[in-house]
């Protein structure tokens, strides 16, 4: 379970789960939804400790599966895989940057969705088909969402600096 000091992240993850759920039932039904939850988990694991890449991914995935009536555990497994890949990408980066964060989010999104599709398919693996192609647009949308968040962060920082001056 999550330890003390993570109280600030819980509302963020809960909000991200709800947001991901809403995106899946709206954009996801029409085309594809970005992996916002994964981006939030990557952000939290960078800034608030790696418990968010394991415990956070597990419980958030389980909650999302319950909300979306998906096979329970499939999203947890996907998010855990996504977080592992995101961690590897971040560790391979020479320095911390928003670009590295975005790249890790995109790679994590691909891994997360691939594992999710494999885990949620019935029968396992054998029923995988062209539906998996949705992974790529989801990764692109995840990068776009991450870029938008990064741009919003930069703008907010600029506004704060100006206000402080």
């Amino acid at each position, binding site marked *: 379970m999550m330890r003390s000091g993570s109280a600030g992240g819980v509302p963020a993850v809960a909000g991200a789960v709800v947001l991901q759920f809403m995106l899946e039932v709206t954009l996801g039904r029409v085309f594809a939804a970005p992996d916002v939850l994964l981006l939030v988990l990557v952000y939290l*694991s*960078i800034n608030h*400790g*790696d418990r968010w*890449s*394991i*415990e956070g*991914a*597990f419980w958030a*995935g*389980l909650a999302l599966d319950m909300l979306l009536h998906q*096979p*329970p*555990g*499939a999203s*947890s*497994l996907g998010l*855990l895989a996504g977080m*592992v890949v995101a*961690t590897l990408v*971040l*560790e391979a980066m020479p320095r*911390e940057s928003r670009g590295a964060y975005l790249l890790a989010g995109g790679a994590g999104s691909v891994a997360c969705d691939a594992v999710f599709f494999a*885990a949620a398919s019935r029968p396992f693996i054998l029923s995988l088909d062209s539906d998996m192609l949705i992974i790529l647009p989801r990764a692109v949308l995840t990068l776009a969402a991450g870029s938008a968040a990064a741009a919003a962060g930069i703008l907010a920082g600029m506004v704060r600096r100006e206000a402080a001056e």
Partner: protein
Amino acid sequence: MLQGGSRSRRGRLAAYAAASVLILLAGPVLLGGVGSWLGARFAFLFFGPEEDQSVEELRAFAVELMLENGALREEAMKAARYRTLLGMTRTLPQEAVAGRVLYRTEGLVEGTLVIDRGSRDGVVPGAVCITAEGLVGVVEEVAEATCEVLPITSPGMRVSCMTYPSGAVGILQPGPGRTLQLVDVDLSSSVAPGDEVVTSRYGGVFRDGLLVGTVSESLTGRAGLALEFSVTPAVDFTRISEVLILLEPPPETE
């Protein structure tokens, strides 16, 4: 940067991944089982025991009513059929007994109908069998509780008939398939398609006026001294279920 990479991190990761796989494999069963168990034991907290019981009672009552409704619908159909037959018995000068077709025997050419009325009901060989639609045939064999009716479509059957309203007399005999033919009709008669064919009393077997069928067409092009007509049977022999067997009048005692 992400913290960790230690043995404990790998252990936690493996544990949570294993938990995910376990939930993935056994989750629906566990959730379903636990959910059912919880629902069975704690549903009264939300719905109350009385309400739950009354819902069950109402459901059972609804099923009972559905079954009863089906049975009543079947009885209504039977009642309508019997009402028609009863109306006929009131107009007939003879006593009649209603019977149900048990099954059909399959003969080489045409089968017979086995009826659930027999000698104990007063049925005798040669008794006439009818339905609300018209003439069916003649009782051929009688057992104690059943009898066998030879339909008029059987190859051996010949029925003395008249046409209405043209009034021509002829002999009805089976035609090809399940059709009937009226033969030996006087050349001077003016029988037309649509005329009803009814039994005449000349044969000595059937009482007069029982509807047999309708003249459908004249079988022209045949050389002979008499006319022939194709007759459509009034009775659908494939769908007979209830019949009336006309009983012989009891011998008059002085």
